[in-house]
C-alpha cells in the first residue's frame, strides 16, 4: 500500500496537465472558472479534443476503444481536468449508453454507435423517468409495440437533461404489459429527428432550462435499435444506474468547490476582517473539507477494489449519498459567505451571458441559483432515500 504516485503515474499526470492546457479552449476554461453556463458547442469542442486523444471515454477498457486507465490514472485524469477548469464530460454517451452498448449490444450496434461516442460527434440523452415513474422506475408506461420491423413508441419521458441539444436518446420502454413490471421493459435507441418526437422545456427554480419533457407520438423505431433482448431491458437499466452513481460523487468538482469557497471567504468582509478569519465560519469550511476527504478515500477504495477485478457494489450508493450532500453543502456555505448580496437575481448575466454588470462581486449572483439548483443532486440518479434503501437491503441485509 502506498499513497504516493509512482514515477510513471507522475509522468502521466504531467502529460494530462500539458494536454489539458494545450487543448482546452481558453473561452471554455474561462466560462467554467467563472461559473458561466456552457452551450452545446462549448462541451463539444472540449470533448472532441479529448476524443482525438482517445481520452474522452477514459473509463472504457481497451478492447472497446478506451484507454484502459488504471484506477490511479483515472483519479489523476479526473482531478487534473477539474483543477484546470475543464467542463464535466457529459455522461449520457460516455458513461451511460456506451458501456451498455459494448456490454449488451450486437457487433453491428457497437460498430454503428461506439465510434461516434468515443469521438463526441453525437450527443446522447436519457429517457428513463416518466411523470408517474420516478423512484419507482420499473412502473414506466411508455410503450413500444411491434409493427413489422419497427416498434411504434407512444408515451412521455421527463427530467430529460439537455435533450434539446441531443441527436439520440436511449429509452426504457414497455414491451410487455402482462408480466411483472421489471420483466416487460426493453432498452431502445431512438434518433431524436424521428417524426413524432416533441421536446418541451421544464423551467427550474433558478429560472434555467436544462431539463425537458419528451413526448413520443407514434414514433417509428427500427427493431435493430433494440439493445439486449426484448423484455430484458431492466438488466441494462440497472447496469447503467450503477455506473451513473459512481460518477455522481463528483469528488474532483467538490474539491474545486471547497477551494473556490475559501477564495470567496478570503475576499468577503466580516467586521472589517476577511470572513475566513471568523472562527465559526472557518470551522464550517474545515468540516466540509473533512467530509470531502472521507468521500475521496471511499471512492479510492472502491476504485482499488475494481482494479482487483471486483464490480462496483452497493458502496457506490454510499458515494452518491455523501457526494450529493457535499455538493449541496458547498453551495449552502458559498451562499452564506456571499450573504445579502446573494439576493440580486440577474437572469441575463446568469443564462444568456450578457454583458450586464454584476451587482457586487462576480461570484455573488451565482450563489443562490446554484444553491437552489443543487437541491437536485439528492433527488436525481435515484433519490438518496432510494440509495439508502439499496444499502440497507443489499449491504446490511435488513
Amino acid at each position, binding site marked *: 500500500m502506498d499513497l504516493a504516485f509512482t514515477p510513471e503515474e507522475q509522468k502521466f499526470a504531467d502529460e494530462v496537465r500539458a494536454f489539458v492546457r494545450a487543448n482546452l479552449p481558453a473561452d471554455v476554461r474561462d466560462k467554467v472558472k467563472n461559473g458561466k453556463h456552457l452551450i452545446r458547442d462549448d462541451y463539444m469542442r472540449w470533448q472532441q479534443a479529448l476524443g482525438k486523444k482517445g481520452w474522452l471515454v477514459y473509463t472504457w477498457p481497451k478492447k472497446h476503444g478506451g484507454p484502459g486507465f488504471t484506477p490511479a490514472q483515472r483519479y489523476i485524469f479526473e482531478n487534473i481536468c477539474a483543477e484546470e477548469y475543464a467542463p464535466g464530460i457529459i455522461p449520457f454517451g460516455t458513461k451511460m449508453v456506451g458501456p451498455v452498448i459494448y456490454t449488451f449490444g450486437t457487433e453491428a450496434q457497437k460498430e454503428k454507435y461506439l465510434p461516434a461516442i468515443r469521438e463526441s460527434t453525437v450527443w446522447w440523452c436519457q429517457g428513463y*423517468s416518466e411523470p*408517474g*415513474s*420516478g*423512484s*419507482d422506475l420499473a*412502473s414506466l408506461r411508455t410503450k413500444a409495440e411491434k409493427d413489422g420491423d419497427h416498434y411504434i413508441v407512444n408515451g412521455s419521458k*421527463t*427530467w430529460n437533461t439537455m435533450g434539446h441539444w441531443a441527436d439520440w436518446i436511449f429509452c426504457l420502454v414497455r414491451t410487455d404489459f402482462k408480466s411483472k413490471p421489471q420483466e416487460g421493459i426493453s432498452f431502445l435507441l431512438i434518433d431524436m429527428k424521428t417524426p413524432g418526437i416533441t421536446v418541451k422545456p*421544464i*423551467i*427550474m*427554480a433558478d*429560472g434555467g432550462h436544462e*431539463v425537458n419533457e419528451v413526448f413520443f407520438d407514434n414514433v417509428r423505431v427500427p427493431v435493430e435499435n433494440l439493445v439486449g433482448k426484448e423484455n430484458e431491458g431492466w438488466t441494462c437499466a440497472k447496469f447503467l444506474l450503477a455506473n451513473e452513481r459512481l460518477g455522481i460523487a463528483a469528488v474532483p468538482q467538490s474539491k474545486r468547490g471547497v477551494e473556490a469557497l475559501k477564495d470567496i471567504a478570503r475576499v*468577503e*468582509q*466580516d*467586521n*472589517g476582517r476577511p*470572513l475566513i478569519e471568523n472562527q*465559526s*465560519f472557518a470551522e464550517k469550511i474545515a468540516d466540509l473539507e473533512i467530509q470531502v476527504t472521507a468521500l475521496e478515500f471511499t471512492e479510492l477504495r472502491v476504485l482499488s477494489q475494481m482494479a482487483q477485478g471486483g464490480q462496483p457494489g452497493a458502496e457506490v450508493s454510499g458515494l452518491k449519498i455523501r457526494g450529493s450532500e457535499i455538493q449541496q453543502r458547498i453551495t449552502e456555505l458559498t*451562499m*452564506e459567505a456571499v*450573504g*445579502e*448580496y*446573494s*439576493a*440580486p*437575481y*440577474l437572469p441575463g448575466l446568469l443564462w444568456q451571458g450578457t454583458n450586464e454588470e454584476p*451587482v*457586487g462581486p462576480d461570484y455573488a449572483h451565482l450563489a*443562490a*441559483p446554484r*444553491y*437552489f*439548483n443543487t*437541491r*437536485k443532486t*439528492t*433527488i*436525481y440518479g435515484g*433519490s*438518496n*432515500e432510494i440509495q*439508502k434503501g439499496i444499502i440497507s437491503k443489499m449491504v446490511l441485509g435488513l
Partner: protein
Amino acid sequence: MDLSLSDEQKQLQESAERFSREKYTFENRRKIVATERGWLPENWAQFAELGWLGMAFSEEDGGYGGGPIETMIVMEQFGKGLVLEPFLPTVVLGGGMIARAGSADQKAALLAPMIEGKKQFAFAWLERQSRYNLADVSLKATREGNGWSLSGHKGVVYNAASADEIIVLARTAGSAREPKGLTLFVVDAKAKGLSRRDYPTQDALRASELTFDKVSVGADAVLGKVDDAFPVVEEAVDRAIVALCAEATGCMDAINAATLEYIKTRKQFGVAIGKFQVLQHRMVDCFTNAQEARSMTLMASLKIDDKDPMVRAKAASGAKVQIGKSGKFCGQSAVQMHGGMGVTDEMAVSHYFKRLTMIDLMFGNQQHHLTRYSNLAMAA
C-alpha cells in the same frame, strides 16, 4: 397569562388570510411579479382601507393603537401567500423609525400619508462590506451650509424603486464600524445626485443599488439625533426581524401543507409515498420545526416592546436563529419530498423555498444571530 387572540385580532387574521388566499393564488402572483412595479397599487390601497398600514402605530401618531401582535398576524398571512407588496420596508422599517425618532413635523409629513397609503419608504443601510454589522457604514454625510451632503453607496435596498423617500443610514462622525457617529436621513427618492440600479431578487421582490453623489438635503432631513441613530436602527431592525419571522412561519405552514398533500397523493411502488416511514418521520420533523418557529415568533412578538433593549435583542436574535434553522429544514425537506417537481419553477414549493432562504440572509443569518444571542445571554 393569556396567549389567545382578541376578537379584533381574530378578525384581522381572517381578513389577512382572505386577502392572501384570494389575491395571491399562484397564477395571480405570477402576474404581479411580471408587472413593472412588482406589486399592485390596488392591493396597497386595500391595505390602507383595511387599516393595516396604521394598525401598529399609536393613536397619537395617527395609527390604530395596535402593536407587534397585529404585525405578526398580518405578516404570517403574507408569508402564506408570498405577498409582494412592500409592507416590511415601508411600514415596519420606515414607519417604525419615523414613529420612534421623527419630529412632530416629520410624523405629519411622512407617517400620516404612509398610513393613508400615499407614501412608501425604503431603508438603505447595507454596504458592500457591511455583512450583518449595522454599524459597518461608510456612506458619508458632511455638513453643507445649514444642511448636509451625502456621498457613497448603498446596496440591496428593497423597494427603492417604488419608494417616495429613502431612509439612509450615514456616517457623520467616528471611525468605521463605530456605532456612535451614525445619522439617519430622509432623502427624496428623486433627489439630484441619487442614482439607482434596479433589479429583481431571487424571491421575486425588487431591490436596488444606490449611488449618492453629493446629494444635498436640508437640516430637517435628519431623522432623530445627529450621530445617535444606532439605537433607533437596531431597534427597528429587531422589529423587522420579528416581522420576518412571522412571515417565515406563514411560509413554513404553506410549504408543509403542500408537501403533506403531495406525499398523500403521489404514488410510487403502488402506494402513496407518505406511507414510507422515512418520509413520515421527515414530515413530522417539518411540523415540529414549524411549531418551534411559531413559538419563537410569538415569544419575540410579545417581548419586542420590552423596555430593556437586551431583552428585545435576545428575543429577536433567538427567534431569527430558530427561523433560520426551521426554515432551512422545512424548505429543503419540502423540495426533497417533492422530488424533481420540487426544483421546478412551476411548483409553488420552490417559491416558498426561495423566500425562506432569503429570509435567513436578511438582517443577519442563523449564524450571526447565534453569535449575537450567545454574547447577550452569556453577558447577562
